[in-house]
């Protein structure tokens, strides 16, 4: 199942923000496996790209290559202007099934317009074109949007390169909740604390995170608006408050509270009002996650003796058991299309990422590591980000939903854990 066709290292050039002192280090991404068949695409440097302080096409190429679905065809240092149809037959004969051309045009207000076109060299047709306007320092986010365009035109699925990820870095006694681009670049600290931070969960709007912070010596659920740093306590009842999960409409969260005894599932409005019980059991119920249609809550429960995954209708009703194989199946996370569940299973003493096809009941273990936690789907469902361990330190890793493509993200001399993949940016 695991192909290690490719093994190389990409160093992310941009440093963490200056205020991320203790954890200041490069987040590097290592690709440890790629798809069996990769689509050959040529991406020559854009015309007049040198007018920008930092490049675009190198970032586009890195995004596509890292996805494991594309192979870059080197056609040398030529620039092909967006306004001219290239010699498609010629590029086809050089092994490229698709070619992206582009031009960078300065605008009177100091910004730039980046125009680009994608061609299918086999069918000899144009697949689409866009023009994006950017400030000079927006080279990376512009490049991610271009890579998303190429990815969507060639795979038929939306890309995920312009998304952001959240994760927690522990360096010594210091905890930082960091936000970075999906390629690990541009990491910034949203919260710095001397106590643990766990379970970050992106609001559907991509502007806020819910998480559990222990800064008050007990677990309390907060909602944090990233742009302003404004924080609001959502759940601070007597006992523990944890495991926030947003409803798809962003109006309420499922949380786990112990105010009435054992850890049990509750719904609460995003402003902290209207708390009500959703499920009752004589065991532990935790790790809720809404189905994308908002109708179900998947969760972990040991009501049957061992921790297993169950689901319950949000509107009320009986819980149904979902996992049956093995004695430890936890952290259910539905795919964006609702068809698959990613979760963690204990397999001969090793904790690994697995998926369950909810229709066929087929299960598949995707990783061969031993201490995997916290799976999180990319918004297009193609990749699963998770926490793992390498060399005694916490690292982030990603695996494609078919198990073929693998990446590892790590920060030097720090533990990285609790990843959460954010939603697609609002256009």
């Amino acid at each position, binding site marked *: 199942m695991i192909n290690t066709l490719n093994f190389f290292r990409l160093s992310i050039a941009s440093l963490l*923000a200056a205020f*991320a002192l203790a954890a200041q280090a490069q987040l590097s991404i290592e690709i440890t496996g790629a798809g069996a068949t990769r689509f050959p695409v040529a991406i020559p440097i854009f015309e007049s790209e040198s007018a920008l302080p930092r490049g675009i096409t190198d970032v586009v190429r890195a995004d596509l290559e890292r996805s494991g679905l594309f192979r870059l065809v080197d056609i040398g240092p030529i620039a092909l202007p967006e*306004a001219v*149809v290239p010699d498609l037959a010629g590029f086809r004969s050089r092994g490229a099934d698709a070619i992206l051309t582009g031009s960078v045009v300065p605008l009177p207000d100091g910004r730039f317009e980046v125009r680009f*076109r994608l061609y299918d060299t086999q069918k000899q047709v144009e697949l*689409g*074109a*866009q*023009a*994006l*306007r*950017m*400030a000079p320092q*927006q080279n990376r986010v*512009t490049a991610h*949007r271009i890579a998303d365009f190429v990815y969507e035109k060639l795979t038929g699925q939306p890309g995920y390169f312009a998304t952001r990820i959240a994760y927690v870095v522990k360096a010594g006694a210091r905890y930082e909740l960091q*936000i970075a*681009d999906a390629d690990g670049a541009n990491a*910034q*600290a*949203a*919260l710095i*604390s*001397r*106590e*643990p931070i766990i*379970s970050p969960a992106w609001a559907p709007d991509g502007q806020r995170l819910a998480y559990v*912070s*222990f*800064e*008050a*010596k*007990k*677990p309390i659920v907060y909602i*944090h608006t*990233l*742009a302003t*740093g404004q924080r609001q306590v959502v759940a601070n009842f007597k*006992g*523990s408050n*944890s*495991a926030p999960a947003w409803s798809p409409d962003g109006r309420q969260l499922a949380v*786990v509270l*112990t105010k009435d*005894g*054992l*850890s049990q599932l509750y719904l609460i409005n995003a402003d902290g009002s209207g708390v009500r019980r959703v499920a009752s059991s004589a065991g*532990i119920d*935790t*790790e809720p996650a809404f189905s994308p249609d908002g109708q179900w809550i998947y969760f*972990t429960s040991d009501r049957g003796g061992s*921790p297993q995954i169950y689901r319950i209708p949000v509107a009320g009703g009986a819980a149904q058991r979902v996992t049956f194989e093995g004695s430890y199946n*936890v*952290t259910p996370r539905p795919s964006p299309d609702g068809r698959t569940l990613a979760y*963690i299973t*204990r397999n001969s003493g090793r*904790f690994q990422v697995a998926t369950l096809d909810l229709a066929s009941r087929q299960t598949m273990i995707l990783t061969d590591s031993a201490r995997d*936690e916290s799976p999180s789907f990319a918004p297009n469902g193609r990749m699963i980000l998770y926490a793992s361990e390498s060399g005694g330190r916490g690292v982030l890793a990603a695996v494609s939903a078919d198990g073929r493509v693998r990446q590892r993200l790590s920060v030097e001399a720090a533990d990285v854990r609790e990843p959460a993949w954010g939603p697609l940016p*609002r*256009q």
Partner: protein
Amino acid sequence: MKKLILPALLAGLLAACSSTGTFDQSGAAVEDRSGAGVATVTAPGVSGSGIAALTDPNNILSKRSVHFDFDSFVIKPEFRPLIEAHARFLVQNPQMKMLIQGNTDERGSREYNLALGQKRADAVRQALTLLGATDAQIESVSLGEEKPRCTDRSEECFAQNRRGDMLYTGEF
């Protein structure tokens, strides 16, 4: 999505003989992610209790930890004297409040471990209330696997981490 703002330029492109066509999306501004996209917040810390008996190493009340067996939430007999001493202190000092923090070893899911740690904290709370401390005095919470006392990956270490800790007013 913004409309094209450079119609004259586009017309020129369309007129060119071997030129390319229109854009699916044109003139859209890329979202701003420069610097200010994420504001950094530093969480506040906590301050101590001021009661000498609670920190005097010769006083049993300075001992605060109850240890548990693997996958167990039962208080072992060796911890009875400790529980009794703290229950007595809470009964004699009704103004004092206690936070009990349950902990687990690191194996498995963080949130599931948080729930398991809660069961340990609740076991300590129930033992104290059976001996006369009131519910209003005690809050039981869990730190799960997040605050290990020992970070080696050995059975001895895991045993140190499976515990409930008792903190008094001013210590949390």
